[in-house]
């Protein structure tokens, strides 16, 4: 039995509004400080020529930094590398998360153990996981090579992080390891929402495992899949710490993503103007991406209604 707004006395409504603002404002103020200022700082810096070792002149140069960045010969390769990384990382994280979620739902002692273990990679700071994986993938004393060697699969250690393609593999291996906890738990949640009766009915109709997967499971977890894909894409596009520690953007620039170049422009070239411009470009790309997502999600919801 809902109360209609008109039957509430005015003073009570005013009190509610005051309460609303009082509870919301602290959060907004804190977040605003840490949002407005960096955005203003980034945009204003990107429109000026700010080179730290030329401190005497920081003139307004309009879009020159943006043009220089987009025309720079690193720009297309950086995007190519970023997209390559993302196009591998996102499907892998999604599919493996989906698969692991199934393993987590089995009733067995092993699955119970796995349920506890799956949270562990989440508990490690990314930069430390980079240090550990760089140690494991090291081509002269690493454990990964060691396992292959001890199992007799290779006769001498393979240079993993020293070749462009295998370096990408190593970096993806480490990245997926870090992302698996979240994706698998999200899928576990989604799978739990599917009523068992659907599967029972399908099995009574003679459907096999693959058919049930295709007809029931995958369509019903579509909302979660969208969340996972979007989130993992955002993570992949801005990823920095892991790659920086494991490969330094190499070998020969093979794993240098856009985020690396933001760092390079700001802290190596000391060109804050260009670094800010690149960051703004990246942020705009993310906005475009999110808008696309919202479009897809809205159309999907409408469809489901």
């Amino acid at each position, binding site marked *: *039995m*809902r*109360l209609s707004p008109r039957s509430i006395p005015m003073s009570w409504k005013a009190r*509610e509004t005051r*309460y*609303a*603002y009082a*509870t*919301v404002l602290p*959060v*907004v103020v*804190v*977040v605003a400080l*840490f*949002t407005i*200022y*960096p955005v203003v*700082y*980034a945009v204003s810096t990107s429109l000026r020529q700010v080179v730290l070792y030329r401190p005497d002149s920081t003139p307004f140069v309009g879009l020159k930094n943006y043009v220089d960045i987009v025309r720079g010969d690193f720009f297309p390769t950086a995007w190519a590398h970023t997209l390559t990384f993302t196009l591998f990382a996102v499907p892998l994280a999604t599919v493996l998360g989906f*698969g692991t979620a199934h*393993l987590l739902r*089995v009733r*067995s002692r*092993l699955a119970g153990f*796995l349920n506890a*273990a*799956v949270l*562990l990679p*989440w*508990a*490690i*700071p*990314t930069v430390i996981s980079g*240090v550990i994986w760089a*140690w*494991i993938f090291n081509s002269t*004393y690493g*454990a990964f*090579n*060691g396992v292959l060697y001890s199992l007799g699969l290779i006769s001498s250690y393979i240079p993993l992080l020293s070749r462009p393609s295998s370096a990408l593999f190593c970096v993806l291996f480490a990245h997926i*390891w870090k992302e*698996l906890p979240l994706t698998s*738990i*999200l899928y576990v*949640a*989604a799978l739990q929402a599917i009523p068992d009766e659907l*599967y029972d009915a399908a099995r009574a109709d003679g459907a096999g*495992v693959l058919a049930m997967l295709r007809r029931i499971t995958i369509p019903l977890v579509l*909302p979660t899949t969208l*969340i996972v894909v979007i989130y993992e894409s955002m993570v992949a596009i*801005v990823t*920095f710490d892991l790659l920086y520690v494991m490969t330094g953007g190499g070998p020969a620039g093979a794993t240098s993503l856009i*985020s690396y170049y*933001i760092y390079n422009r700001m802290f190596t070239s000391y060109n804050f103007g260009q*670094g800010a411009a690149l*960051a703004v470009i*990246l*942020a705009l790309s*993310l*906005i475009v991406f999110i808008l696309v997502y919202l479009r897809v999600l809205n159309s999907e919801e409408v469809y489901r209604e």
Partner: protein
Amino acid sequence: MRHSRTQQLLVTALALLAAAYILAPFAWVAVSSIQPEKELFSVPPHWVPRILTGDNYRFIFTGKFPAGYTETGLLRGRISEKARDALPALMNSTIVALTVAAANLLLGVVAAYSFSRLRFRGAGALYTFVLASRLLPPMALAIPYYLIVARLGLLDRYGALILIHSAVTLPFTVWFLAVYFKRVPPDMEDAALVDGCTRLQVLVRIVAPVAAPALAAAAAFAFMFSYNDFPFALFVTSTIRSQTIPVIVSATAVNPDVSFGVVAVTVVLTMLPPVAFALLFRRYITRGLITVVTTR
């Protein structure tokens, strides 16, 4: 419900593979932390350790140098001493992360509830603004954040980290919980309001207990983000007074006198608080995620 034998074997095999993938790095680090440095670089590795030692742990906890590192006649050995800051750093990290989680629970929950239940002018705009705040990459945020914190006089203090981490986690908490609250029918709350309770009382007495799993999940996310943060902590901390564990581990892992065995010990120690936290609240975390994801 898998009945076929081969299917069961397949599932077990895959589960073992998944467990191996997830646990292998931890096992490697744990086993490396109890071996002397010399043993760690053999080709192939000694899968069963030949020499076990507590020297690395003893170095972190008591400062006694591992065997072979002190030169006769010299005052100190050639090993990374920064590692001994691991324990204070662990305390810093845990305190900051717990405070950030608490701040999220206090401020974020209350704000999320207001967003979801109350109508007030500017709600939509504020909501979008709070969500849009996470688009600049951390590298570009580091300097502005540093400048803000410096102006507030909070450099090298817990306050700097708590402020920055809260500012970054609150938007997510608010969004996450607002979505949740919106799906919950407001009947009980309306009844309580009619009985004369204030919104705050309704929140604390009726909504919070029911929403506990979602709240725990939000707190857990905030804790993990704060604990794991490296780029912001790196810039605003400058002494062990506030340096967090990611900062210490990265500092110990790069010097010419680094001992990987000691690094392994710091990594093992790093894992303990969040693992304890995650295991304690695991049920709540998964349930919280379930309720949010499935009530769409």
